[in-house]
């Protein structure tokens, strides 16, 4: 005979009475695990979508109003390229890629296109000050899947479409959008004349369905003198880490560049942030419900159990049981309830998330093992917390009164 034998036998003797409390804790833990599991994969999916979208923060001249995200740099208004220095030197966390742009209209073979000057990555790395800031030295993606293993990696120049930045670009090189290529029947290695300068087509970009398809990209420092505008840009695109955006990256950039306008892909980011916040709140609500309903149910059951067993407790005391062993007896029972409820809740919650997640949230959901210890801790805290006072009452029972009630 051990204490656990005594507790285990009693649980099975009165299992029907325990069922309600067990289901309260089981359902609570199931709900929390399922929500947390689906939320995690939902956040991951949205973050992946954001990553696929490319830049999600734009820095524009103050006077510009944003009509179309993809043509934001075609407004004619400019600001100094020096803003890029300020950003890279700021040490702000959460900026994965920076892409300053200067766009000017050009006409080729009687057709109008946009010549966009961009700064390749090697230009950043060439500048000692920017290297010190280490914008591109930091790991990119903030946990977002940047490169999907098993998928073909696009040619280096074509990363511009997805990552909004390319590694290298010579002063006489161009990248042409899909519409430009189709209109001018260009292919890699052809020569194109723009604003009086000859460029070599080093890559044709894949179709994006945006205004980028009508662009011809060249080195920013080549386009600036051709446009006759000096060291200025129309816009800076930033691939911001979604998590950092929710923590106020935009406000920090605003503070850094008060003369500029900072905008985000608000609908996407806001939806993501709101969804995350809503799910977090929902988890908290469930945590509150489980603590209240589950806790109240367990406390109620335990008080009833103490009342029902007062004669048995009195007998144990007559046989020499001290108050500590009586408290242990009830707390061990609560612990078993918490352990079984926690594990079963984790299993059910995970199953619910894996089965219902794809249908409700439209994302694939996998089991998350770290939710098991979390579920156990919550279940144990609720069960032990709710059982403490009933256990104390049992330990303070007057054994003589309990024995005389026959």
């Amino acid at each position: 005979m051990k204490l656990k034998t005594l507790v285990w036998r009693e649980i099975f003797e009165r299992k029907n009475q325990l069922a309600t409390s067990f289901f309260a804790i089981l359902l609570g833990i199931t709900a929390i695990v399922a929500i947390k599991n689906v939320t995690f994969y939902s956040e991951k999916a949205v973050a992946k979508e954001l990553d696929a979208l490319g830049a999600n923060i734009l820095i524009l001249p103050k006077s510009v109003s944003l009509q179309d995200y993809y043509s934001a740099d075609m407004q004619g208004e400019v600001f100094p390229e020096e803003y890029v220095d300020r950003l890279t030197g700021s040490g702000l966390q959460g900026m994965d890629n920076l892409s300053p742009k200067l766009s000017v209209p050009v006409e080729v073979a009687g057709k109008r296109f946009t010549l966009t000057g961009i700064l390749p990555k090697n230009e950043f790395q060439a500048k000692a000050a920017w290297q010190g800031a280490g914008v591109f030295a930091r790991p990119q993606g903030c946990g977002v899947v940047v490169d999907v293993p098993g998928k073909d990696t696009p040619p280096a120049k074509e990363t511009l479409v997805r990552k909004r930045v390319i590694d290298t670009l010579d002063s006489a090189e161009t990248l042409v959008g899909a519409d430009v290529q189709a209109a001018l029947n260009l292919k890699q290695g052809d020569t194109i004349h723009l604003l009086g300068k000859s460029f070599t087509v080093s890559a044709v970009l894949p179709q994006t369905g945006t205004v980028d398809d009508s662009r011809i990209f060249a080195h920013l420092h080549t386009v600036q003198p051709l446009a006759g505008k000096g060291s200025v840009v129309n816009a800076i695109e930033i691939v911001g880490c979604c998590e950092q955006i929710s923590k106020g990256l935009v406000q920090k950039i605003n503070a850094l560049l008060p003369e500029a306008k900072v905008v985000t892909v608000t609908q996407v980011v806001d939806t993501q942030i709101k969804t995350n916040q809503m799910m977090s709140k929902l988890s908290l609500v469930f945590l509150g419900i489980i603590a209240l309903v589950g806790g109240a149910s367990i406390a109620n059951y335990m008080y009833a159990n103490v009342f029902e067993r007062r004669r048995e407790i009195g007998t144990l005391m007559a046989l020499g049981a001290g108050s500590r062993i009586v408290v242990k007896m009830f707390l061990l029972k609560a612990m078993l309830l918490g352990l079984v409820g926690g594990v079963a809740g984790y299993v059910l919650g995970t199953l619910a998330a894996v089965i219902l997640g794809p249908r409700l949230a439209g994302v694939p959901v996998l089991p998350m093992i770290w939710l098991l210890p979390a579920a156990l801790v919550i279940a144990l805290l609720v069960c032990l917390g709710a059982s403490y006072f009933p256990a104390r009452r049992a330990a303070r029972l007057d054994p003589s009164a309990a024995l005389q009630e026959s």
Partner: protein
Amino acid sequence: MLKLQSVSKDYSLRGQTVRALDDVTLEIERGDFVSVVGPSGSGKSTLLLVLGGMLSPASGQVLVEGESLYDLGPEARASLRKKKIGFVFQTFNLVPYLTAVENVQIPLFLAGVDEANQRKRAAELLDRVGLADRLHHKPSELSVGQQQRVALARMLANDPAVILADEPTGNLDPDTARAALDFLQEMNQEDRTIVMVTHDMAAAKRAKRSLRLAQGRVCDHTPADGYGESSAFLELSSGEV
């Protein structure tokens, strides 16, 4: 062995105070077998609970082998009960969801005996009371007499020096009652001190001494027939008639 010095105990019932024990003084020596008789409500069970360290008196002292029981804390009192006192209840008070052997193991478990020795000792005790073939039966699967025998085996588990029995034959048929009393006498012959509360005069006569309680006072003491040679001595309370 057991000594009560001017012990009084009151109960409060519906706003009225009822005196269950009234200035009781008595001494019970080692190896004595005392029956306590009296009408219902005379304080017999209260006396037993006070002697067992389960009910603090309003005033007075209870000494067990010279140690003042109620000067000890609750945990120390529980520990003393565990080592020296065995209870027998009228309704047996077996734990319903445990088997006979497990019920007998309880005092051994509380005393910290390891599981193997618990089982061995419990089986021996059940064998002694004639229940070797009922070790794994639950109380509901045993007759009333068998349940009482399990309770007696449980009472003996920690080899108590003092046995406090509350109406041990109250629920038993005459044959089973006789067997239970035989068993208590056997325990007494092993030099255990027994205090037995009973309504049954025939059972009371099996004790060495009989003590009558009325309205919380010890009002008579009679050497029971056949046990008059006992050296036990009862000091009567101030309420002696």
